[in-house]
């Protein structure tokens, strides 16, 4: 890598880190003010979202329907704290609108609606919907020989939905190298650990068996995220599955890897402590 390229990469990593911190603080403020939300999953997904929007994807928030845009599908649609924050940070709508989170008649519904907000590709909420829709987007690109990429972020518990495996089969069959799945592998679902509920491991072997290329990374490491997600898919000949090992509640000590924060909401004291830690 040339010195200039190295310097550019360092700048990107610094930007991703700065945006990730901002997303954590802003999304937690949203959850605190609404007294609703899914902050644990917001925090496990934050670094992935920051890397995608500030280091990887090509998009213009002023042209949200540009046919050539890279697509991002938020399959874990309950984590709107982080998703809305990253869309605002990316310029899709003013940051001030984040204060409307879940208020009556707000565009910022608890789960995202593409008819309310630019930058939302498909309405999610029920689990297991994002990957099959992203598959269709990627097939459209394949038919047209377009070079846009399609990214989809799922939870890990969400992979218990069978619809994902239907889509996995066809993506592997069609060798869709323009499709990237990122699994937010925080190992916790709503009420328990995934491995105690309906175990997923060995998760990497499952995706390989379906014809995918698999990368396992630290989902909070901005350099790893940038390297794996921004690598050109050309010639890979397979869809890419990135297993991002994460922690629910990452960034705040009392929330870290704590299932109670799946949809827990903070008291005033907890909010202030979290904000003191998120610096």
């Amino acid at each position, binding site marked *: 890598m040339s010195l200039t390229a190295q310097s550019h990469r360092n700048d990107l990593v610094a930007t991703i880190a700065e945006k990730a911190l901002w997303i954590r603080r802003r999304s937690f403020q949203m959850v605190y003010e609404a007294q609703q939300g899914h902050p644990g999953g917001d925090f496990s997904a934050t670094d992935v979202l920051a890397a995608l929007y500030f280091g990887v994807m090509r998009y213009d928030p002023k042209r949200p329907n540009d046919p050539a845009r890279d697509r991002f599908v938020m399959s874990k649609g309950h984590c709107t704290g982080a998703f809305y924050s990253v869309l605002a940070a990316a310029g899709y709508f003013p940051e001030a609108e984040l204060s409307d989170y879940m208020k009556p008649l707000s565009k910022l519904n608890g789960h995202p609606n593409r008819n309310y907000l630019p930058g939302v590709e498909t309405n999610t909420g029920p689990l297991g919907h994002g990957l099959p829709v992203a598959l*269709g987007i990627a*097939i459209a690109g394949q038919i047209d020989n377009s070079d846009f990429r399609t990214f989809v972020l799922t939870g890990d518990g969400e992979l218990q939905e069978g*619809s994902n495996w239907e889509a996995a089969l066809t993506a592997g069959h069609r060798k869709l190298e323009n499709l990237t799945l990122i699994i937010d592998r925080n190992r916790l679902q709503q009420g328990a650990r995934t491995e105690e509920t309906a175990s997923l491991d060995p998760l990497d072997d499952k995706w390989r068996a379906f014809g995918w290329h698999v990368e396992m990374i630290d989902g909070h490491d901005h350099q790893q995220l940038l390297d794996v997600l921004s690598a050109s898919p050309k010639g890979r000949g397979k869809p890419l599955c990135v297993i991002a090992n994460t922690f629910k509640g990452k960034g705040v000590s009392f929330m870290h890897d704590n299932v109670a924060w799946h949809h827990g909401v903070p008291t005033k004291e907890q909010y202030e402590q979290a904000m003191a830690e998120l610096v």
Partner: protein
Amino acid sequence: MSAAAPNKAGMFDCRDSFAATIEDLAANDPRIVTVVSDSVGSSKLGGFKKKWPERMVNVGIAEQTVVAVGAGLANGGKIPFVSAASCFLTARSLEQIKADIAYSNVNVKLIGQSSGVAYGELGPTHHSIEDMAWLRLLTNLTIIVPADPWQTEQAIRAAAAMTGPVYVRVSRMPVPALERGNGTFEIGKAETLVEGDQATIIANGTMVHRAVAAAKTLAVEGIAVRVVNMATISPFDEAAILAASETGAIVTVEEGNIRGGLGGAVAEVVTANIPVPMRIMGFPGFVPTGSADFLMEHFGLTEAGIADAVRQTIARKK
């Protein structure tokens, strides 16, 4: 006119009209693609596949994915026609139709093939008599139940021409080409096939020609019965229902469950406006074993059965 040809009895399989129309549209619009779940033959899409193999997406036996992929293809600028047996397309993937298609409000056309009890002896797992009830609850989704080959072609053309989600119910039951003057098809507009002012039969799909035959029988008896072909279920032609109420008696006939479908939709309008005696004809629930023709006879969905229902409903007029 559709290229579809009748059988020896002069009856048509509306799937032929669908297939001929989609090929005609696809030849002129590269955005049109078909999406199937191993349902190429049952959708009569073999010709399409031969002409444009790269524009047919077959996801295998995976109905949730066939619908979701339709939503994704629309996002990528395509006009996808997702075609599969209506029993599986609407039941197995109802949540995808709700969230990915209707609530997301995307430009996907769902084609429910071989609807109603067309699969006869294969039984209720393969019948689609519930689809009207559960689909008409979904906001944004246009629903069309064409009655004959001409109207099937019109419905497919209208679906392709509009932006937004559409469900078209296509039958494999043989139907005649209905007699019309210069017919026009408009989504949301009912078609009056027989004029009359003593009662109204509101029917759609495969039941329309039977309703017309019943009206002709009754005309011989001096009973003037209107026949309305209510091909569009959503949006619903409420004006046609209000006009039907003014004839004082209404009989609805559908190849579907008597709860929640066409009859239910008519009743909602009738009871809220000008209540009149009504009879809802269809199937009462899961049906016993039998061919489609047997089941129609068994549940009175015949010229004679419909005529009887009209006489009885007129007798209830105050």
